[in-house]
């Protein structure tokens, strides 16, 4: 069974990584723990995004709408409903994002390739311009506050930093693992196989009776909801829902992470998101011209390593295995 094999391969990756992630807050300092939390959150977003790029073959340049949309959904829940529970934040933003991505999806999945990209970009920019212009509702460029929530009923004590680097960290880790499992099940289900069939050959997929547009729409909604979960986790950690995560260049960053890790593999987006988070954190700390640094990394990556980190690892392993045989 191919899927058993890939489950085995996933577990050989996942188990050591989970063990490392689980002990991390006791080993590394607070700054590292926070960076890792951000990394896991972006990994959730990239996993959601990759259901479209890697498995359905659609390059969205508008996923900031779902990430930022969820972040704002959380901030609105705080502002208007006085909610403080993370579980309610997640539920609310999942519902909001399901609606939003269905709305966007109905328009976007009529197109593929470059038009799909432009259309997702344009629609996400609508949200951004609304957040930007209706400043009395959204706070404009200042954004909206998203205070630290209660997790399963427990609220942050006096030491907010300890709360964020421990309780919140494990909460994010839990959601992250859940997302990995659910996404793994999705891409290995008959539905996931159908998506890959559509990606590889649209005409053939249609010929064997797959309703292409409906499958694409469902994939779009799932992808939007997953990315939204990441946005909902991000807002309280960042403390603020701001237009930075709604603007289209942030969508570009999500694409960047996924390509950095390798969009042809399941774990690629996870590796890419965590690597990108570290790369960006250190680049921003290192120089004002961090954009130049990241842009150069992206250009070099595409020139010499188009399959991303995971692709390079696979190649390396294949070479080692070949040498071992001969």
């Amino acid at each position, binding site marked *: 069974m191919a899927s058993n094999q890939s489950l085995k391969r996933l577990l050989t990756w996942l188990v050591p990584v989970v063990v490392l992630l689980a002990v991390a807050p006791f080993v590394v300092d607070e700054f590292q723990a926070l960076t890792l939390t951000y990394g896991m959150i972006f990994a959730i977003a990239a996993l959601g995004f990759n259901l479209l*790029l890697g498995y359905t073959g659609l*390059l969205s*340049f508008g996923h900031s709408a779902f990430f930022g949309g969820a972040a704002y959904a959380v901030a609105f829940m705080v502002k208007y409903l006085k909610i403080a529970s993370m579980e309610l934040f997640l539920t609310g933003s999942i519902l909001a994002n399901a609606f939003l991505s269905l709305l966007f999806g109905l*328009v976007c999945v*009529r*197109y593929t*390739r*470059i*038009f799909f*990209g*432009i*259309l997702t*970009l*344009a*629609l996400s*920019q*609508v949200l951004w*311009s*609304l957040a*930007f*212009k*209706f400043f009395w509702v959204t706070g404009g460029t200042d954004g909206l506050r998203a205070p630290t929530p209660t997790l399963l009923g427990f609220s942050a004590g006096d030491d907010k930093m300890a709360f964020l680097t421990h309780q919140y960290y494990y909460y994010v880790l839990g959601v992250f693992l859940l997302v990995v499992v659910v996404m793994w099940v999705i891409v290995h289900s008959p539905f996931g196989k159908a998506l890959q069939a559509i990606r590889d050959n649209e005409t053939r997929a249609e010929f064997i009776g797959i309703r292409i547009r409906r499958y694409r729409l469902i994939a779009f909604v799932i992808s939007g909801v997953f990315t939204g979960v990441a946005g909902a986790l991000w807002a309280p950690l960042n403390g603020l829902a701001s237009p930075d995560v709604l603007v*289209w*260049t942030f969508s*570009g960053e999500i*694409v*960047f992470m996924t*390509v950095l890790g390798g969009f042809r593999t399941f774990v690629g987006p996870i590796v890419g998101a965590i690597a990108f988070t570290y790369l960006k954190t250190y680049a921003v700390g290192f120089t*004002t*011209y*961090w*954009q*130049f640094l*990241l*842009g*150069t*990394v*992206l*250009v070099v990556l*595409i*020139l010499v390593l*188009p399959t991303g980190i995971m692709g390079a690892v696979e190649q390396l392993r294949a070479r080692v295995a070949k040498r071992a045989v001969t």
Partner: protein
Amino acid sequence: MGVFAIHILNALLYSSVLFLIAGGLSLIYGVMRILNLAHGNLYALGAFVTAWAIGLALNAGVPAGALFLLLPAGAIAAAATGALIERTLLRPFYRRPEEYQLLMTFGLLMILEDVIRFIWGPTPLTATSVYASLGSLEIGDARYPTYNVAIIGVGVLAAIFLWAFIYRTRFGVLLRATSQDKRMASALGVNVNRVYIQAFTLGCFMAGLGGAIVVPSQSAVLGMGVDALVLAFIVVVIGGLGSLEGALAGALVVGVVREVGITFFPEVELAVLYFIAAVVLLVRPAGLFGRA
């Protein structure tokens, strides 16, 4: 009456600049099938180079009248940068899926943004002396800057030249042939690589020209490229990606809607533009003038 005329002139002013940016973007896409995300940065580069050159000339004591000769500097700088980019970074990608080309230009966007910040710093550059030297016109009971009328003139001239270039010259024939069927053109002896670099350079030249003529009336600020790019997207989506007539029509639509929007519904002005773009895509997926 005068106020109405000024609204029309403003709409045309905006359309002219947008046409230069979006026309270049559309030309590049039409010939090469590359959506250049860094296109807005070339527009910004044109603005910065021109403002910088004019600033230098002013310090050297060049009279205001001669400063106009410096306006093309930005366009030439953008064209040269474009030629370099095409040759080194885009050419290896023509056989690869278009996702990679899009990502490559996204990387270029990030790089160029910081290159501009590195060279000219975070403070805006201005070239208002050129703008002021022309004074203003009286239209009915209102006044309108003469320089803005000149921008409209440049936009119209650019459209005419481009039309003549593409429909009345040998180079235009090669360009159209490559755009319609690259392999057939290549089989008939067209040097496709050369057409590509020429088209890309021309597109970048237009973007740079847009930046260069706009900078005396506004100023060159960081981030102007990304803002312009997003508007240029709306223009090409409305007009049809790859069509110059479409870019012209789209630029007029966006120019008029924006002028009306700023007057009557400033909060949702951008949202209305995107909404129009979405409606056009739903009704005519290839845009008003696009080929399917």
